[in-house]
């Protein structure tokens, strides 16, 4: 009993740390004016999200998050930001002030909508969570689901990745070939 209580308190402590790191770094991504700092804050955000995934016993997704996102995607982001360099002609925000007010209003409405919909539809079922085995979220279980129940999603994902790779190559090649003759916007 005592061990269970201590474990519960520990999990709560880890959750509070990860959740606040997650929210704080999320706000930092949106509010930094330098995209380089924003990208670094997003790496922190992804890392603390991986801790939350671990608490939800999604071990494979947490590992994939750190490898794919914090590893590959963010390195690509940082390369592009370093390649472009600091651009002084990119303002923090702009336009008339009603646009900013509308943006804040729309984001707030979205948040309220999420809370209301989840509260109305799922509030009864949130309290009691199902019992899970230790295999839940393990690589073996994920692989079994991918190759049996969700085979179509798996194959479509590979096509999406292939199309994205081809698109990236075409965008890069086109920009190199026609830089001179195309007039600026």
């Amino acid at each position, binding site marked *: 009993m005592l061990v269970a209580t201590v474990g519960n308190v520990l999990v709560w402590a880890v959750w509070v740390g990860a959740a606040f790191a997650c929210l704080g770094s999320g706000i930092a991504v949106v509010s930094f004016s330098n995209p380089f700092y924003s990208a670094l804050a997003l790496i922190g955000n992804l890392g603390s999200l991986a801790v939350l995934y671990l608490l939800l016993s999604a071990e494979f997704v947490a590992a994939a998050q750190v490898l794919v996102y914090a590893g590959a995607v963010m390195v690509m982001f940082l390369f592009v930001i370093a390649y472009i360099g600091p651009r002084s002609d990119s303002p923090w925000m702009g336009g008339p002030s009603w646009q900013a007010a509308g943006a804040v209003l729309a984001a707030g409405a979205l*948040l309220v909508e999420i809370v209301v919909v989840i509260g109305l539809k799922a509030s009864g079922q949130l309290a009691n969570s199902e019992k899970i085995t230790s295999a839940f979220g393990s690589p073996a279980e994920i692989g079994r689901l991918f190759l049996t129940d969700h085979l179509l999603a798996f194959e479509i994902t590979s096509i999406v990745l292939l199309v994205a790779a081809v698109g*990236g190559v075409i*965008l890069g090649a086109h920009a190199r070939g026609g830089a001179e003759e195309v007039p600026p916007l």
Partner: protein
Amino acid sequence: MMGPGVAWYLAVSGFLFGTGALGVLLRRNPLIVLLSLEIMLNGANLALIGFARNLGDGSGQIFALAVMAVAASEVVVGLGLVVALNRKRVTLDVDRLNTLRG
């Protein structure tokens, strides 16, 4: 389930989604719009994984992995566009990029 219930995770996920939406709507640098988009996708992922744990069903984690793959593809295309714009010496401002020509 030790620790906080799934409702707490959903609160974090909703807040992340709202933060990302605010960044997408408010910021004008396309790089930061892409980064905010990543925050929105991760908020959705956290909700998916929270519900997967709550219902004891691994399909939510599969969906989260698919979302990750789509996010990686989206980043590739988005960063390709940003680099192409930079080569043409166009201002990196999403409000000025309102035409598909050239």
